[in-house]
């Protein structure tokens, strides 16, 4: 697909979808538009319009419950973004990112089956909404992506939740090479409590890719998969205005032992409750037998809610650059809108 046709198609599709929000905004669901503008400065890349894997974008979310006389039985969610990366050349700067794109059928509270594009069942990512946030979980370093295509079983028992996923191991784009797959399982305490914890397992042959595009496909770094095995623990604790988050993952990438962890403190300012301050430290060691493979990121963030639909965020990140011996400081601001 040429640059012009891809850009024109994505633009026209989004413009055409905006007026449809009224038609689709039924009582059983909602149709939201999204704008995500990022700008900042990096000591390594100078002026930037992205944060990590997140580009400036416009998009939409369509969420709907389907019900019959006996109640809800099907849920659908679609999150799509048209993103722009000014650092890429003209053929690669625009892309369509499909984030959530799933259908879930409910057999009972104990068993639901989901198909499409969604979070692997590992670590904090499935229980924390990071779709719009500057601070992300460990998923990008740990697995290489935070969503993948496949199927999932999940359910809720009185004292625990479980989910098990089998996915392609390809991340944003639909592709399969070298018998790739990703199998994940998480069991955790029920969500919606002030204290939550989870235990996760992962096994897979995972493709390494670069970029968040689904269409055109993102860049495949190698035709060969990396064999991954992991065990992970995650937890969250809300105490007054402070929310503590943490996760740790240990396992193997091919023959190398790997270890990663994340600690985060989110603090809602009691006197200005629209304002949340965040402090996060992430570490990833891609080979425990080689200390030069350690890397770490320290991030200070702030989020200010202007309205129910609009949030301003800012973050300063220091990349200790222990792996490539090059540190990086990055400051980004974000304007985020999600509303119908």
């Amino acid at each position, binding site marked *: 697909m040429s640059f012009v046709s891809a850009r024109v198609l994505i633009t026209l599709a989004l413009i055409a979808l905006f007026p449809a929000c009224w038609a689709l905004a039924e009582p059983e669901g909602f149709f939201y538009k999204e704008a995500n503008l990022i700008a900042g400065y990096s000591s390594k890349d100078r002026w930037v319009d992205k944060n990590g894997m997140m580009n400036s974008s416009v998009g939409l979310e369509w969420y709907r419950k389907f019900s019959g006389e006996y109640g809800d039985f099907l849920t659908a969610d679609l999150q799509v973004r048209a993103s722009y990366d000014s650092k890429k050349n003209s053929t690669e700067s625009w892309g369509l990112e499909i984030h959530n794109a799933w259908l879930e059928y409910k057999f009972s509270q104990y068993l639901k089956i989901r198909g499409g594009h969604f979070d692997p069942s590992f670590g904090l990512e499935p229980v924390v909404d990071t779709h719009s946030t500057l601070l992300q979980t460990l998923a990008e370093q740990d697995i290489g992506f935070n969503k993948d295509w496949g199927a999932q079983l999940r359910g809720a028992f009185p004292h625990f939740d479980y989910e098990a996923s089998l996915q392609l191991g390809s991340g944003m784009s639909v592709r399969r090479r070298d018998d790739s797959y990703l199998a994940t399982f998480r069991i955790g305490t029920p969500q919606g409590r002030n204290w939550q914890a989870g235990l996760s397992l992962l096994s897979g042959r995972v493709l390494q890719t670069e970029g968040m595009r689904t269409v055109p496909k993102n860049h495949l770094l190698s035709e060969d998969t990396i064999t991954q095995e992991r065990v992970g623990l995650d937890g969250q604790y809300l105490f007054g205005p402070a929310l503590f988050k943490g996760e740790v993952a240990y396992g193997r990438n091919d023959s190398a032992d790997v270890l990663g962890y994340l600690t985060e403190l989110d603090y809602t300012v009691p006197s200005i409750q629209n304002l949340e301050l965040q402090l996060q430290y992430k570490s990833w060691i891609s080979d425990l037998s080689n200390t030069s493979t350690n890397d770490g990121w320290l991030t200070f963030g702030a989020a200010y809610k202007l309205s*129910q639909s609009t949030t301003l965020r800012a973050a300063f990140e220091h990349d200790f650059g222990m792996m490539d011996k090059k540190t990086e400081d990055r400051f980004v601001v974000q304007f985020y*809108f999600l509303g*119908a």
Partner: protein
Amino acid sequence: MRKIPVIALLILGLFAQAAYAAVGCSLTDPDRDVKRIFPASTGYKTTFVTIKEKGGEPLKKEIEEKFQDKFEPVYESVDVPYAFYTVLKGKDAVGYIHGVNQKGKFGGMQLIVAIELSGKIVDFYYQKMSSPEAGRFMDKKFTSQFKGLTLDGLMKGKFSISDPSVKSSEDFRATIRGLKKNLLLIDALLLFKK
């Protein structure tokens, strides 16, 4: 950078229309909560409703008059979609569950209320509680005291429930405010009571 204007145009188009907001407070796990509160239920139906859709500013003023308070402009605006759960036994409704966000002393709290068809509270709990004394508020000894209360009883102060906290009376008052708001919204947006 020359392509930035294309994104700018898209965003202008996006803001040219009225904006609704992200969902106010939905149940984190409705399947578990519905079954726990209404063990005989066989299902539930979810609906998302805004004050804007059901009457806009005039309806908001009507609710505020009954509320004897003003809605907060950021978290209680007319475009907040409220998620209502109609609990079913077979095809018949046996109750309703609804949650609201409420500003507390230290941060937001999420107050979930379940009522039977008569309007009596059958269960109340905090889905989220930002307070160092959260344990005292979330304790069943406190929350169970609201069982049997109705909107009328709450509004007329026909209850004698004490503040469970030592230093967070603001959160007790916020809880009462949130409960009144919750039941008023069920009446106005789901049951269409005048």
